């Protein structure tokens, strides 16, 4: 019996050797834009009726998340987030390894309702983009308006980037201020990109970022 070691999971960017290329913290701080991969994130696609309070309550019981019903917004509680993908569709994301209990928990709690819970953790990897030029870099590839007045921390969108399709999420600012202070100057975005497009997008991002000082970060 050959058993696979779970550490042998390979992200679609594994062959790029990004960890080995990671810049020092100081270099990353100096960079105009930083790029890093955050592989192996738990991602559960959830379909259901946003108008059904029982559905929302059941999801909240399992995840602690009140599913966002405002378009293009994200609800976050501790290490779980729910990204609004459509009027009846969300992506619940969290640390890798939660797939089993979340999928099972949700299916159990939603029994009897019209829903779909689909584990899509393997379908996409995450590329994190940060730094003062993060918005400029993204604007090269996406037609979304990322101005802080329009697209701030806690917002998400499905859109195109370069010739690929992505889910974009601007993270809440770290540190002081729940209102996202600092996020205007040093925003952090995460791109959820399908595996098969990841290599294309990564190399595209590195090339498009060349005119800024770009640093690779270890996640």
């Amino acid at each position, binding site marked *: 019996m050959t058993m696979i070691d779970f550490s042998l999971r390979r992200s679609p960017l594994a062959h790029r050797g990004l960890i080995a290329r990671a810049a020092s913290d100081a270099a990353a701080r100096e960079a105009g834009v930083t790029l890093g991969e955050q592989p192996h994130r738990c991602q559960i696609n959830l379909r259901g009726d946003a108008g059904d309070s029982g559905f929302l309550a059941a999801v909240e019981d399992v995840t602690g998340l009140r599913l966002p019903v405002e*378009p*293009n917004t994200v609800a976050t509680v501790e290490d779980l987030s729910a990204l609004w*993908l*459509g*009027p009846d*569709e969300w992506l619940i994301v969290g640390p890798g390894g939660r797939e089993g209990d979340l999928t099972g928990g949700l299916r159990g709690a939603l029994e009897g309702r019209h829903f779909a819970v689909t584990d899509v953790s393997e379908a996409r990897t995450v590329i994190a983009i940060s730094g003062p030029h993060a918005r400029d870099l993204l604007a090269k590839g996406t*037609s*979304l308006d990322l101005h802080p007045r329009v697209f701030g921390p806690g917002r998400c*969108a*499905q*859109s*195109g980037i370069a010739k690929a*399709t992505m889910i974009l999420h601007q993270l809440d600012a770290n540190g002081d201020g729940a209102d996202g202070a600092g996020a205007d100057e040093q925003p952090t975005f995460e791109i959820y990109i399908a595996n098969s497009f990841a290599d294309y997008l990564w190399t595209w991002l590195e090339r498009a970022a060349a005119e800024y000082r770009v640093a690779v970060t270890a996640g």
Partner: protein
Amino acid sequence: MFLISCPFCGPREESEFSYGHEGHIARPADPDSLSDAEWADYLFMRKNPKGWHYERWNHARGCRRWFNVARHTVTHEIRAVYKMGDPPPAIEP
């Protein structure tokens, strides 16, 4: 490139959408009861107006929802976007 306001996601560039041709053409409930001519009319005949056109779009790179758009085929003004199942809005000529 059009700017189209998805009824769910808000204004997005045309490149996120795919076009679904003329709207408000319901699939016949019982196709077998239609004559060949009636079926051909459903399949192929479209208004193709010079002026206001009620048409379907799909937010393919976004929420994947289908919806309706009232667009002027000469000026390309988009006067209304509305959900599937809603009636077409009246537009002054």
